[in-house]
């Protein structure tokens, strides 16, 4: 037996293509080979991978046949093959990689082992990543963290190999194997590489992203981003600044039509308006987190929404006190004021509002102020001032929050406000918390204490906003108020929300809701809010 093996090995080493071919036939006939012989044979067979095939046309098919024979030897030869792989040249790396990958699950642990040992050897990692690209079994996902890490490497060959491997695995394995976190990571890493300085990396990234998309692993937002990126690469975005590398443009061009012909289904525009969480702030007042991804994406401080909770109800305008663009959620505070708000506050987590429109109204007036900004909230207004406070602070102004309520347990959203301001001052009418008195008392104090107050925003009950304006008017401090006029459509088509600003009629929903408080006709606003008092009572009676 040993003799047979030796002669075969000798023939394999020869320069004669026909002899080699014969030897390969003989290897194929062999059975019951010992492990040692397998390794000996494998090491000779792998030599064929390195042979220069220039001028020896048969060599390519011989190498392929050698690869096929090696795969028959099973897992015993894996350690040897991996050792070989680590130092292999590009050509043989492919043969070795495939030969290892065919052995499947058994190869994973040794590969990871070598990876750990050779972590510093980028050349080794380049070959290892290439080999990983040939696997077709779910177990290979154990190596994905390493692949992802390698994809972020500065070595462009390593990075492009890793991104390629990622794409290959995505294309071959079942989509269900990739969880949310992995999908997000793969997208983020590849997407970041679209602006790599090396065209090879960009090309691999563009291709892998395309595969992620093809396998349905991308969210709609990710698809949109990808489409925008592809359009920029091919120069369709109107900037005329396309990617100068043909290979990158080519990938983008291939995948762009797929993104287009997979029309965003209408479901993409249907928001559930589901209540994700509900929290009592004080009696009759609740904080809600609602699923509304499209609205969340566009909201800006000071804007509002309109909710129609069910088929028979009226349209209820509500200020926004927060949002999470990534989660696609918006936050509101609802105070039971009458029939519809009471009905809304009876809804629970998991229930869905019938309709929500928004974002409505203009963004709050925010810019950098030299002097201090004071944001004042009363009632549901405490929630509403938070986004604006955050914006003002982000622009570098000093922001003091003031919240007023009748007594301590009616103070709401204080923690959230504190996070958004430099300082928060509380006032209660009965003195149970903070300063005893009204928000105007606190404001007077602030005006005295601060070097300069440049800007005031007040949101809450009309008498409170009016009192604030009376205080700031004589001393000329810019004061904005958010007017909660009665509304119907909220888009500027009915005029229900008319307010008088400096003697001119404006629509609170369209031109506002924020206006210069010194110009508002509060008396008219107060009276207009009482337009339907009799009807509201009647509505409550049948509730």
């Amino acid at each position, binding site marked *: 037996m040993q003799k047979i093996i030796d002669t075969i090995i000798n023939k394999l080493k020869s320069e004669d293509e026909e002899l080699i071919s014969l030897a390969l036939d003989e290897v194929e006939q062999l059975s019951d080979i010992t492990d040692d012989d397998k390794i000996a044979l494998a090491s000779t067979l792998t030599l064929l991978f390195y042979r220069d095939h220039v001028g020896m046309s048969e060599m390519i098919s011989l190498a392929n046949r050698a690869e096929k024979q090696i795969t028959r030897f099973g897992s015993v030869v894996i350690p040897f093959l991996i050792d070989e792989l680590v130092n292999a040249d590009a050509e043989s790396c492919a043969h070795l990689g495939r030969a290892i990958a065919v052995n499947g699950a058994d190869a994973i642990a040794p590969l990871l082992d070598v990876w750990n040992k050779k972590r510093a050897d980028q050349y080794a990692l380049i070959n290892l990543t290439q080999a990983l690209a040939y696997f077709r079994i779910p177990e290979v996902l154990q190596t994905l963290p390493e692949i992802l890490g390698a994809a972020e490497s500065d070595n462009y060959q390593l990075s492009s190999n890793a991104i390629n491997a990622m794409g290959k695995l995505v294309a071959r394995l079942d989509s269900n194997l990739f969880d949310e976190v992995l999908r997000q990571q793969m997208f983020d890493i590849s997407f970041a590489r679209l602006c790599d300085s090396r065209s090879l990396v960009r090309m691999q990234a563009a291709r892998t992203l395309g595969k992620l998309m093809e396998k349905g692993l991308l969210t709609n937002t990710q698809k*949109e981003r990808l*489409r*925008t990126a592809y*359009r920029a690469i091919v120069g369709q*975005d109107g900037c005329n600044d396309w990617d100068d590398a043909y290979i990158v443009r080519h990938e983008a061009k291939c995948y762009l039509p797929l*993104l*287009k*012909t997979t*029309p*965003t289904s*209408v479901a993409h*525009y*249907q*928001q559930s308006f589901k209540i994700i969480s509900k929290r009592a702030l004080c009696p009759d007042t609740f904080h809600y987190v609602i699923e509304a991804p*499209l*609205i969340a994406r*566009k909201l800006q401080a000071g804007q509002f929404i309109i909710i*129609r909770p069910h088929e*028979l*109800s*009226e*349209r209820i305008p509500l200020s926004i006190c927060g949002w999470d663009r990534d989660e696609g959620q918006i936050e509101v505070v609802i105070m039971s004021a009458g*029939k*519809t708000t009471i009905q809304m506050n009876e809804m629970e987590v998991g229930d869905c509002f*019938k*309709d*929500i*429109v*928004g*974002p*409505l109204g203009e963004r709050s007036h925010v810019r950098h102020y030299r002097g201090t900004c004071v944001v004042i909230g009363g009632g549901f207004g405490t929630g509403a001032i938070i986004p604006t406070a955050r914006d003002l602070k982000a622009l570098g102004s000093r922001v003091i929050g003031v919240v007023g309520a009748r007594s301590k347990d009616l103070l709401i959203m204080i923690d959230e406000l504190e996070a958004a301001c430099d300082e928060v001052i509380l006032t209660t009418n009965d003195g149970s918390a903070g300063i005893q008195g009204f928000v105007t008392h606190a404001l007077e104090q602030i005006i005295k204490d601060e070097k300069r107050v440049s800007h005031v925003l007040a949101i809450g009950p009309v008498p409170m906003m009016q009192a604030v304006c009376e205080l700031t008017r004589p001393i000329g401090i810019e004061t904005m108020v958010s007017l909660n006029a009665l509304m*119907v*459509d909220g*888009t*500027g*088509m*009915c*005029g*229900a929300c*008319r*307010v*008088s600003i400096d003697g001119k*009629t404006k629509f609170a929903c*369209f031109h506002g809701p924020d206006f210069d408080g010194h110009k508002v006709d509060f008396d*008219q606003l107060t*009276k*207009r809010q*009482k*337009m*339907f008092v*009799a*009807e*509201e009572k*009647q*509505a409550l009676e*049948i509730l």
Partner: protein
Amino acid sequence: MPGKSAKKRSELSNKERMALSFQEMPLIAPEERIKNFEEVPIGYSLEEAITEAKRCIQCKKPDCVDGCPVGIDIPAFIKLIENGDMAEAAKKIREKNFLPAACGRVCPQDKQCQAVCVVGKKKEPVGIGNLERYAADYERQHNTLELPEIPPSTGKRIAIVGAGPAGLTCAYELCIRGHEVVVFEAFHRAGGVLVYGIPRFRLPMDIIDEDIEFLEKIGVKFVYNMIIGKILSLDDLLEQEGFDAVFVASGAGLPKMLDIPGVNANGVYSANEYLTRIYLMQADKFPEYSTPLYQGKKVAVIGAGNTAMDVLRTAKRLGAETTCYYRRSRDEAPARTEELEHAEQEFLNWHWLANPVEFIVDEDNFVKQIRCEKMELSDPDTSGRRKPLPTGKFFTEDVDTVVLSLGCDVNPMIPATDKGVKTNKWGIIIVDEENCQTTKRGVFAGGDAITGGATVILAMGQAKTAAQAIDQYVRN
């Protein structure tokens, strides 16, 4: 023998045709109809329809077709009705107009096809609108409507902003050309003015619902609660959402207000608010539906257009004593003749040549009285118009609700949120009349958005022009 009678019918001479008298549209009696929101015109019977159809002399060069903004082959569909082939008649109309039931009811035929009908030179013109309605209703009642053949998808996607008549028409025209169409509507319901403005007693809601259902069946997608400009911009639609073109049909939604004392009093509504509360939000069923309407006992309606007539008749149905105030005379009233006549039958009060100068309020800002100046008409000026002139004489009347029906300006949302879409000084979106293309590439517009408050059929006509241009644009 049926064969013989059919022949005889076709052999009617022009003289015989001209001798037939106009078939009046039967109406519910005024005393009855002001108690509810039932549709007022009952519709022709089969006999009436055929007789009216016989009045058409089948002109070789029919003027009525030129008088129709969408060019319906009027003599052809009337001939089909005359022959008793109602389903085919409806089909004929649908070749040019896919909202026949609505148009048969609300089009101002007296200023269009019927105004130029040859028969009208000597007698009452052919009742084209009534016949259109008859054919459309026959189709609805007998379910003869067939879904059109939709060609294979072109892969092109078009976004429509607004689900009023213009948006719906454009959606239909593009859908049957094989494009994918998504309609974005700001409200929770499609139809535009057809659902939030025009009253149920003129246009029952189920007609529009059926039209929307039809569009859904042929593949048009509707998304509600989407205010384009706010939740998605035009650029978002074109660049992110993968639409190849956008059609803006956001209508004329900005109510004109008076600039007189008391205009912001409680109880003073725009017609838009009044009608929206009632028809879209169903305040007439308050408190079952929660939207309130402060409905007084004495309602003053300012204006005399179609909208004013609708408000007057709505207020009457809600039980108020209702008065129309208009600064010119009846002859200048812009409402459709038929609308004005129907309103006049409904026990309303009319103050022609009366110009409101103040709404007097009580201490709670509720409107209590209306003060008007009496006007007189000037002699026709060079433009041939008679202007209302102040007389210096005033009168005051008690009212507790005022509805301003002074028309609407163009909805400013789209031009306000996209600087690429230019408007003229009245806020009207500027388009190239040939193809309805706006000043922004890939964006087209039609309907009230490019004319200011006009009519359903004009809006539809522009939408068809735009659809053709969009079709060409996306194919190139």
